[in-house]
């Protein structure tokens, strides 16, 4: 149920975006694009502005200048709640699953926006509403099976290991078939085995009509997973290219050698 005005295969473009907080400019004239069928990484040292740019994409921040568009459709004025409608979906750095709902219900929530059932269906056992819940549950179970999570469907997320919780979030994000999947530090808090599993899952998601955007500190994950990488430093884009090109870029090397964290 995607907005018809967004054509398949459309790009997500960021054009001359500037953002400042109280006179401090965190993004300066940033332009970049994200392409369908690809995993695009957004990296940079701490304070480079990647989280700020990510928040501009999700709608948490509104840039003072510049445009963000999906297939030509401007997004920058849309509040976060309306970006889901045009096909944006996301995961959170700190897992944001509802502890009171079990795993399959958390994933079903990812489809709630697509539902057509009204308030009468919410309270009364009307056939249309029941069918919709069943359909939604089936779709959620299908995604859980695809991500090898079906065994946890009836458990609550709180007891699951961090890696599994992250995968449940990703299941919730893709169950509505978004055009854009935004991942905010998906490997944060995961152990190496969990990170490998996450990487396998993300590779499996790559398809011609989905673009995946990853903000991440884990350089191994970025280099192994991404088709293209944008590098930010001091609020500006300093490089774009394939992992090989980025590895060889003298500017990037200079920036990262100065930052021993990575």
């Amino acid at each position, binding site marked *: 149920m995607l907005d018809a005005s967004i054509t398949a295969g459309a790009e997500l473009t960021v054009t001359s975006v500037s953002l400042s907080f109280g006179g401090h400019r965190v993004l300066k004239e940033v332009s970049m694009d994200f392409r369908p069928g690809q995993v695009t990484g957004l990296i940079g040292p701490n304070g480079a502005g990647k989280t700020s740019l990510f928040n501009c994409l999700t709608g948490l921040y509104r840039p003072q200048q510049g445009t963000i568009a999906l297939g030509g459709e401007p997004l920058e004025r849309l509040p976060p709640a309306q970006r889901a409608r045009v096909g*944006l979906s996301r995961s959170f750095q700190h897992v944001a699953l*509802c502890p009171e709902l079990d795993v399959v219900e958390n994933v079903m929530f990812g489809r*709630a*926006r697509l539902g057509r059932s009204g308030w009468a269906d919410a309270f009364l056992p009307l056939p249309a509403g029941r069918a919709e819940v069943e359909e939604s549950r089936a779709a959620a179970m299908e995604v859980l099976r695809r991500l090898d999570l079906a065994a946890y469907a009836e458990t609550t997320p709180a007891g699951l290991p961090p890696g599994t919780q992250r995968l449940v979030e990703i299941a919730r994000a893709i169950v*509505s078939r978004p055009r854009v999947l935004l991942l905010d530090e998906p490997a944060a808090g995961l152990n190496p085995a969990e990170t490998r599993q996450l990487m396998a899952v993300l590779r499996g998601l790559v398809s011609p009509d989905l673009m995946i955007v990853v903000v991440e500190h884990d350089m191994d994950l970025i280099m192994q997973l991404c088709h293209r990488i944008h590098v930010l430093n001091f609020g500006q884009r300093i490089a774009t290219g394939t992992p090989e090109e980025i590895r060889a870029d003298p500017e990037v090397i200079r920036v990262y050698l100065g930052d021993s964290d990575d």
Partner: protein
Amino acid sequence: MPEAVGVVTHAVTGEARPLPRRLASWVALVVLAAIPAVAGGFWTYSVGVCMANAVAVLSVGFLLRYGGEVSIGHSFFLAFGAYCTAILERQLGLSVGIGLPVAAIAGAVLGVAFAWPSRALSGIYLAIATMALALAVPELILQAGPVAGGYEGLYVSRPLVPGLSIELQRYYLPLVVLGLVVLLLARFRRSRQGLVLLTARDHPRAAEAFGFSRGYARLAAFAISAAVASVAGSLLAFSASTVSPNSFTLSTAIYLLVGTVVSFGSLGLIGALAGGAFITLVPQVFAAWGDWVPIIYGAALLLVITLGHRPAEVLAALRARLAGGRRDA
């Protein structure tokens, strides 16, 4: 730990509800249905009012559970439903059969109108606004003039079904409505909207990212809660056969919250009945020591809130404390 609410609620609801609890609810229904046959008029009256109050407790519990919000202003919606019923009877000769649905719908509208200004703001504003709402009730009733009956209030005496004993109707109508409200709320837990409200309560940003603004969640939770409260008011008017301004004070509203907390925020039949009984019967039992009633309620509230009802949670906190770590709220 931002945005974690940790409301006073059970995790066990909806379809995950174990059989013994469901069985207990049916047993309770059968026992309640038998009370008028075995107990005297006084108990029939008291338990009838208990059940009306149980619906009121559910309305506050719903807001706490699905909205993560505290209300100390639900006496407003209670009064609205009660006066709606009483005025419809007195002015138009309509019975509670019309008064109750009208109260439910108008209550929902009123709930939206009230929650609208704070739709995108922190819940503290809503909590404070509810305090003003509760304090405004008596003066608004008096301001309404003769139509609302002033200090004296109004009587509700028209039977729902003409010809049957009014005393029995005053008992069985709250019983039936209480059972229905519990069933409807249990269904709501499984609905699309139920999932949205629960997620929005714990992670408003996640709800936003999936297409539901804070405003939507705030207004929806408040509208449903206000509608249930309004229904409870209608039942109270019918069961107690009278409405007057001094039964809808700030204390009334706070006691409803007490009833919700001592029922551990349950939206089930047994929990709601326990809450309703607590707020109905304590003032009756302690009629001779009226000044002590707030102390009893306050102490009960503090006891449940500080000791918590989830033994596992208390144990975990204790363990964390013994280990030297402390959670930062």
